[in-house]
């Protein structure tokens, strides 16, 4: 492969890394920094310089991508795995069972909110309420959970996975949900990493709840505007299943990575926050990463199932090959056959 080709393929990754750095560096420095008055100017200068450098280089890479087009990595490498998983209807059934088991566990363990199973279950033990799944908030949460999954798959068009290449604005709803979810995931990941290096200083938080709310809103909106262009790149010039699969894959991978990072850190850090579990960054990461992982599994399982069905319908002999793969043939030697 030519060097230019390698560069072309690597560009999206480089852009992703730069954008991720542009998010992580300022967020991590701003959110829970332990700045004092004397050094604030110096830190602000270096922060602005870092953001400017990352933004300029990221914009350059993105301009290059727009000019040359993006070459995403070859998806066929994982195709056998997707076919293997998608060929099982049990995947969808399993997902429904997982959601059911999750909700049932919340009832049994008396979680205050059914989405907090992962964080509450792993956090320090404390007296739990018994009002799980009985309050109207839980039902609203459940409705929002399912509605956003449907809206993600609907993506501004009919609730149908077709092969046509829709206009980009048809993906608007999916892109918006994806961007919001990825923003939350990045914020959670940064918090988990801050907890990992013990830099979650509760005392440096603003005391006014309005200030916290404004800051979180700005943080989410900031991240949202960064993830929207990424979603646009992922959805450009592709058909609906491919576009949704890319978004769904990124969400699934992101939430899995967040849980994989936050879980071990929380296991170590939970002893430090016995009195106030939500002061732990890894606890917050699990509280958002766990539900998002559960959420993103749904569209992923559905898209895999639809992919296999589409392959069945379009590829001659696909069903036969699938049947042969699941069957066990008995070798018959000529002697036995003769008898």
């Amino acid at each position, binding site marked *: 492969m030519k060097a230019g080709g390698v560069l072309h393929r690597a560009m999206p990754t480089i852009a992703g890394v730069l954008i991720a750095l542009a998010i992580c560096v300022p967020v*991590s*420095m701003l959110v829970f920094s*332990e*700045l*004092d*008055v*004397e*050094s604030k100017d110096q830190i602000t200068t270096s922060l602005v310089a870092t953001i400017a450098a990352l933004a300029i280089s990221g914009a350059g890479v993105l301009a290059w991508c727009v000019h040359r087009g993006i070459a995403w990595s070859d998806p066929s*490498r*994982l*195709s*056998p*795995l997707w076919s*293997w998983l998608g060929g099982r209807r049990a995947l969808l059934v399993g997902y429904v069972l997982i959601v059911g088991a999750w909700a049932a566990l919340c009832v049994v363990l008396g979680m205050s909110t059914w989405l907090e199973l992962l964080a509450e279950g792993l956090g320090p033990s404390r007296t739990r309420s018994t009002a799980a799944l009985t309050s109207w908030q839980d039902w609203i949460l459940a409705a929002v959970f399912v509605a956003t999954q449907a809206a993600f798959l609907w993506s501004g068009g009919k609730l149908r996975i077709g092969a046509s290449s829709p206009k980009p604005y048809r993906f608007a709803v999916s892109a918006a949900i994806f961007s919001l979810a990825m923003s939350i995931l990045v914020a959670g990941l940064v918090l988990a*990493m801050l*907890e*990992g*290096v*013990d*830099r979650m200083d509760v*005392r440096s938080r603003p005391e006014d709840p309005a200030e916290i709310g404004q800051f979180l809103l700005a943080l989410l909106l900031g991240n949202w505007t960064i993830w929207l262009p990424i979603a646009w790149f992922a959805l450009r010039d592709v058909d609906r299943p491919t576009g949704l699969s890319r978004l769904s894959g990124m969400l699934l*991978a992101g939430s*899995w*990575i967040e849980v*994989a*990072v936050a*879980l*071990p*850190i929380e*296991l*170590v*850090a939970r*002893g*430090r926050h016995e009195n106030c579990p939500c002061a732990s960054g890894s606890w917050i990461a699990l509280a958002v990463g766990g539900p998002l992982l559960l959420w993103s599994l749904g569209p992923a399982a559905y898209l895999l199932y639809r992919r296999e069905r589409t392959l069945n319908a379009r590829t001659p002999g696909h069903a036969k090959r699938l049947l*042969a*793969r699941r*069957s*066990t*043939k008995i*070798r*018959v*030697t*000529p002697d036995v056959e003769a008898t």
Partner: protein
Amino acid sequence: VSADRYLGAARTASLLLLVTVYLAVDIARSNVPRLLLLADARGAFTSAFFEQLVDDDKVLVVRNGQSEWWGIPEVESRSHVLKPQFGAHQDVPGIGRLFVMREQGAKYLFAQRRDGRRWIATRLDSAGAAIGGEARLRDIALELSLEPKDDYHATFRAIENELIDRRVEISGAGIALRSDLAPWLIALFNLGLLILIRNHVRRALDITDGEEEEPWLLLDGHVGLERVAALGWLAALVTAPWISSATLLMTLAARVHVDGSISTWATDGALMASALTLVIAGGWVALTLTADVVSLRAERRSHLTSAPAAPAEEEPA
């Protein structure tokens, strides 16, 4: 090179991978509680140190047999602790140079060891302070099967030596690793092994058409318990990098907590970025390896279950 040799090497490497994952879990299970015990010991030592102070706002420093009183500097942030060139300090043999400072009303003890490692601690919390620092140090020493000394400095020195300087011995390999470095090395080693296995499986996939090559349950278990074992083996390979990364993150988080988060932003950023890279790279290699193994399983199965070619009839002489 035949596919046999690639598959044989991949099978051996996969077994080695599983052994190292077990080793990583075992080391983390041992390391994390020991590190948390070390944090406890440092808190107890700090308590004992402050219990000896006569004046709460001053530190008695003994230099060349003469006593001096030093005021405790008030600092705004622990980030200043990185350069404790100011204030009182004591040189305690075997423990290091001890500085005392105060931040937002709480007093901290900062230690700089001879080997360059540093830590900061405050007094034990209210629950732990029910007993004095010296008594708690004695308890910890007994917990570690060490003989408590009369001098709390000596007791703490023995505890720190036991918990920090003891190396992890890998029996059979004759290797002894520093306990804080072992998870990093194992995570890197596991990633390398996964890449090696994927390369071998991919090469075998390129060469073979599913002929009956080297037997490997991972590829040939299709029915009953064999299938369960094969899928279990595959699941173990997929989860291996996540598990070793998790043990690494646990040890890293515990170590940072025990030392009191006195490293710089750059160090913390580099450590977490490296750990995150290992998580992502390991996950990607494990996923692609699974896809290749699934392909190879399908090819082997297809070949095994296809009807054999009819034997060529010998032509009559």
